[in-house]
């Protein structure tokens, strides 16, 4: 499936920023067998004083930009064409939950894709007993890992309310969980914490989602937003699967991957430090149009 993608993020600063350094993870990834970036570029207004591309530890494409001139508005524009190929596996050949620790113990490598990176608490995701208690209510040791992942994802979808006003980007996952409210970032963080607390390696994916329009109605332009979901490691045979707890479904052709990491901090679309005294407001616009 081919998509044309447009993203625009605008920041307005109450008082001008003297300088700033940002790391952008906006460009869709090329993932062999899953998706291919046909073309893509990021445009910045004002033009940055420095710009440099690199890949981070997890293999995500990062654009580092530095602004040295005073500016009171900042705009990132992404234009990309992506070919999305992946479909979820139909057969569940994952081991039972109780057999997962043994498979993990045999891993002797630290490559970015190894599940060992995704078990421990990560900077934005300290573990808390509440996650383990919740997760254990929905699984048993004999269950296959894939069905455990799906069971927890479905349960969260049922128990949590999607609410764009309930949380901010810095709300801790536990707080969102206790209030059973949040957006895709909270859903994903909570699911990751639940999976890790029962020994399933789990990570964070940021990307885009095509909003499927209801039949007979025009597609809502600009209504889409940057999205996030979860990846979970289901044993050596299957490896990683991806699950979207906000929509309670296995990730397929409707999702476009941008960046992967342990939590939001590793995959955040825009990360940075500003020298400014005042507050800021942000505006996001996203179009994901199938061709």
């Amino acid at each position, binding site marked *: 499936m081919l998509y044309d993608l447009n993203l625009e993020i605008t920041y307005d600063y109450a008082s001008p920023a003297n300088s700033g*350094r940002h790391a952008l993870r906006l460009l869709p990834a090329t993932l062999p067998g899953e998706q291919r970036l046909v073309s893509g570029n990021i445009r910045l207004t004002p033009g940055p004083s*420095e710009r440099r591309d690199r890949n981070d530890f997890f293999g995500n494409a990062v654009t580092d930009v530095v602004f040295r001139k005073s500016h009171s508005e900042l705009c990132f524009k992404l234009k990309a064409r992506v070919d999305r190929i992946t479909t979820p596996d139909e057969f569940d050949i994952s081991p039972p939950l109780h057999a997962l620790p043994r498979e993990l113990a045999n891993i002797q*490598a630290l490559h970015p894709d190894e599940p*060992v990176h995704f078990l421990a608490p990560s900077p934005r995701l300290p573990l808390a007993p509440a996650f383990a208690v919740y997760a254990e209510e929905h699984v048993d040791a004999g269950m296959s890992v894939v069905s455990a992942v799906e069971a927890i994802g479905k349960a969260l979808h049922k128990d949590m309310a999607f609410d764009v006003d309930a949380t901010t980007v810095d709300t801790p996952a536990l707080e969102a969980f206790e209030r059973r409210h949040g957006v895709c970032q909270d859903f994903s963080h909570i699911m990751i914490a639940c999976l890790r607390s029962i020994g399933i390696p789990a990570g964070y994916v940021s990307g885009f989602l095509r909003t499927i329009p209801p039949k007979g109605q025009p597609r809502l332009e600009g209504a889409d937003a940057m999205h996030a979901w979860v990846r979970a490691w289901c044993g050596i045979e299957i490896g990683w699967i991806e699950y979207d707890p906000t929509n309670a479904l296995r990730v397929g052709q409707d999702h476009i991957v941008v960046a992967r990491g342990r939590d939001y901090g590793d995959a955040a679309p825009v990360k940075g*430090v500003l020298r400014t005294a005042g507050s800021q407001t942000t505006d996001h616009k996203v179009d994901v149009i199938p061709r």
Partner: protein
Amino acid sequence: MTLEETASDKGYGLLKSYRPYPGVSDELLDAVGQVRSVWRPFLDHLSALTTEEISDRFARGNQYLNDAGVYFRQYGQDGAHEREWPLSHIPVIISEDDWQVIADGLVQRAELLEHVVADLYGQNHLVSEGYLPASLIARSPEWQRPLVGISPKSGHFLHFLSFEIGRGPDGTWWVLSDRAQAPSGAGFALENRVATGRVFNEFFAKANVHRLAGFFRAFRDHLVDLRDETDSRVSILTPGPLNDTYFEHAYIARYLGFMLLEGEDLTVKNGQLMVRTVSGLQPVSVLWRRLDTAWVDPVELNETSHIGTPGLVQAVRQGSVSMVNALGTGILETRALLAFLPRISERLLGEHLKLPNVATWWCGEDSTRAYVKEHAESMMFSPALSTALPFTSAQTDFIGRDFEKFHKGILETWIDSKSHNLVAQEAVTLSTTPAYDNGLLVPRPMSLRVFLARTSSGWEVMSGGFARIGRTEDASAIAMQAGGSAADVWIVGGKKPKKETLLHQAESPFFKTQSGALPSRAADNLFWLGRYIERAEGAVRLLRAYHARLLETADPDAPFVAQIAEYLEEIGVAPDSPVPESLCMMLQSAVISASKVRDRFSVDGWLALNDLAQTANGARRALRVDADVPRAMGLLLRKITGFSGLVHENMYRFTGWRFLSIGRALERAHRMADLLSVFTAPDAPEGSLELLLEVGDSAMSMSRRYAVSLSQGTVLDLLAMDPKNPRSVMYQLTDMKEHVGILPDADENGYLSDLARSLLQAHTNLAIATPETLTPEALADLRDRISFLSVELTDAYIR
């Protein structure tokens, strides 16, 4: 022979009740209770002193530490306090032969750690070949993923290490902990040495104690050699004055002549690390960081850090800066690593560890866990990923049998539940060493911190170190936070050591301390220090004048008295109490500004400033309204001028001194212009001219210069325009002009900087004025021009 006999035989009354604990080795006494030969000369010396002499000498050591401003920041329930440095005056004495064993073992260990960290951020053979568990490394927050794959610019990850070691019951030394992130304590070791050397001055001069300065010199030369170009700088990165070892950072920076920087002093431009100075951005190519990796760069590492430098990791990635030690080396402090290092040593070096580390078991592996459970009662448990020193946290570290006491029967279940996050260690017994307690020596547990530095000829071991001494016989009370103390370590040999200081000998090349450019933040703090002190002085002079008149009239509503009160209120120093709170705040602000530039300040200056602030606080608490306030103000005034004198007489004429002086001149000129504009107004009450002369400290000059009686014209002449009166506006503007003219970029291609131009304008306006044209309005305009100079200075040099 019993211990008592030994002691009395030699006449060591001090050892009357010295009894080492059973099953514990002792530094002073050997296995049969004989005083070790290396200790005898010292003990002979000590025994020849009376109790009074000993306490006098100890007091001398404490006085030194106090005068040198050595403090230690202690964290308690009610926040952090600076407390006196807890020196245990009796040194730990170790023979050269014993020391050589330690030194050989630690040099081997340093080599090993370099290999391990290079592998962890490089090829990962240790993990792929099964020498280290992948899940242990991946779990550690100290294994910093953004640094994976980056080779250090200098070719080495490690340049400065310390090791915590202890002596076991069988007399052999054990490594308790590796310090590789940003090891602290070397500066304190130096201060302990100076203090202890003063306590035992005659003895120390004759004893063959190895000296420390050579170690620091070799390391300084190594860092200087790491620079790309001779004009780039070696700097020390500190978390700032709130850190518990900030004193040491400032001390080492001063001692070695390096620049002391905080994260906000630095910026990264096109991948090059730069320091913001008053001469613009200057490259930094060697950074000795005393800041943990996670905090150095909020863009790529801990994003909540406010003490870092955005882009620093990128600068490292592009190879523009040598980090000492490399970022990410904190992983080596992980306690669980001790379990694997003995095997790794054989794999990487083909050698056994010469100095064993504490036997350690990581509970993340099934077979190991089974063994640990069998021996759990006598083992010490702690978090696997902990990087804390041993014996620092009773909350997290404990012995198995203590756990059983409180949670009967569940120790094994608990071990299973913690698995990956737990290490078990052999419960270590530390050796004891003498401490002085109430006229006698008593045995106290101790561990040693030993420092290693990379030099041009390989790893060098500091011949001495830093001993942590327990408060009681309990080894877990050894941490200074828990009331333990610190002692000097003497390595004693047969030969007299070479006399060494940090100054280069004649045969070595001349080395000039890098004076270099002044970091903008330091300039800012010095400028404000100058302003706050002068502002306080001005306030004290006015308050004294006010209270003197109040005493005379005994009527706060008398028009003239009321007008001075009103003026004081306008400038924020309402005389509602003898020492207004705002005056104490000014002095406190001066202390804060000075605390941020401790490395540029003499110890005397620092002590004088603190004394001044404390005197003001004390007077505020003690003085009642009816007290002799003018006298108290006189005392404060003398302390202020004492401090100013110390600073201006003794500070080297670097750029920093210029900013301090500009701050003082600007504040003084501003205050005088403002005073003149108010108290020469046509409606100013009777007595205003006398007040101006008094506050301007110019009554004597007045009578000497002018035979005529006091008039508005003569006062204006003397206090505004007289170029020879140091209290006049003109004098201060001339002073500022001189300083500004020497600052970087004061004159660009023949054009004056904005600051220099504004200053010249104010100066010229005043120079061509006459007493008649200096109306209150003209004076107010002058005041505003002076005030604006502060903004222009900040724009040009600070931002």
